[in-house]
């Protein structure tokens, strides 16, 4: 019985190990975010590089923390965040993922 179960499992595993001649399909996970009037700024700036999971995982933070993160995304990772969007994205993050402290 056990052997019968192990064999298909091994075959499944080995098919993944073949040269990756087929594209590896990575699953898509939807991380729920509030869709308010600033959400479009999030959509056009954040997802170039990472999922919203990064934001949720970071937990509730100060306005200064989020602003620093937004600036880092532009300065280090070269996300094309305009000055206008810098404020909209920071506002959004602080509104929904803020700890009510400015710094």
């Amino acid at each position: 019985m056990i052997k019968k179960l192990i064999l298909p499992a091994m075959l499944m595993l080995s098919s993944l190990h073949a040269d990756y001649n087929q594209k590896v399909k990575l699953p898509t996970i939807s991380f729920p975010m509030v869709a308010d009037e600033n959400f479009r700024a999030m959509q056009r700036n954040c997802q170039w590089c990472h999922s919203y999971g990064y934001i949720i995982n970071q937990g509730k933070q100060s306005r200064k923390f989020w602003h620093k993160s937004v600036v880092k995304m532009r300065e280090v990772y070269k996300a094309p965040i305009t000055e206008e969007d810098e404020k909209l994205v920071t506002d959004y993050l602080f509104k929904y993922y803020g700890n009510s402290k400015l710094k």
Partner: protein
Amino acid sequence: MHRRDFFKTSLVASAALLGTAASAGTTKQPIDSQVISTVAFPEKRPLITYSDRPPILETPRDAFTTAITPNNEFFVRWHSPKIPTHTYLKGYRISVNGLVEKNLSLSLDHLKKDYEQVEITAVLQCGGNSRSAFIPTTSGIQWGSGAMGCATWKGVRLKDILKRAGLSSDAHWINFSGADTPAFHKAPKLIRELKINEISDDMIVAYEMNGEDLPFLNGYPVRLVIPGDYSDSWIKMLSNITVTKEYKSLYYMDTAYRIPDNECECETEDDLFEKTKPITTMNIKSLIGYPTSNSIINVDANVVARGVAFDSGHGIKDVLISVNGGRTWESATLGDELSLHAFREFRFAFRLKEKGPITIMAKAINNLGEEQPYPEAIKWNHGGYKYNGIDSVTIDVV
């Protein structure tokens, strides 16, 4: 109002409002999430999932009862969003270039046929493992304790590859990078540098993990293995090795993965220590794999706590267990030493006489006499790196 002015004003206003926010910085037990995703990634069972793009997966606590972490439970951390999802092995090459006598273009077949095959069992751990322990929160993935694992890696010695290429006399540094790339070409690529005179015999270019091809998400087809060091230099999907004379200033060397260069390796948010050093070597750590906060433990039942301990390669001498919240400690039984760099299993049998919550703790001691500090004794650093506090699990005895 111009928006720059807005921020200036709001910061001044906040400082006036709150006074100077003197946050000394402290640590606590890292989060102990048992929230397993319903979604499984290729070659993985469902894990604690922080991001799908790039994939970031944490190993749940209950995997840490054995010295070898199964491939399908092994944690995953990529930095760049663009990861090749199609690897044509016949065309896959690792380029060895720069200050070498002969450029090499190595296929997986070359590695397997032209070089001596070696194996090492070693722990791979993210420098930010347990980052959620740090208060105030530092920027970066808020890991629990599962950004680590131990595997038997098979491949060829880095030294042997460099010998074949022939190093020029003025070669001092080696750059390593993988096939993954950032979203914007001006953004920093994950490139790591190693000093040539620090390359040891146990650093390998590995293509196998626990007897199988490297899983795609752990760096298929080849990755660098650097026993004793945090994972930042264990480059995945290794595709380029460049030998240089001078150290190159790089984001992932000079800014990321650094800690204060002082004795306590600590600082505060308001007073960051200016001089920094790379995180490099792992410190001593242990983790209880069983019981977990989900375990049901009955009064007077025979319980065997299990877990793993490791350091940077000096070897584990002892693991002390407390089943009364730290009042008394006793030595656990240690499992075989698979290698000095491997997880060392520990077991500890006990019985609890009373109902109610009880905290089980584990503290590892290595052959140098170094031991894990209490969480509260660990001081803050801006990257949330190198947490290694005494582990504890609180269970409800019924």
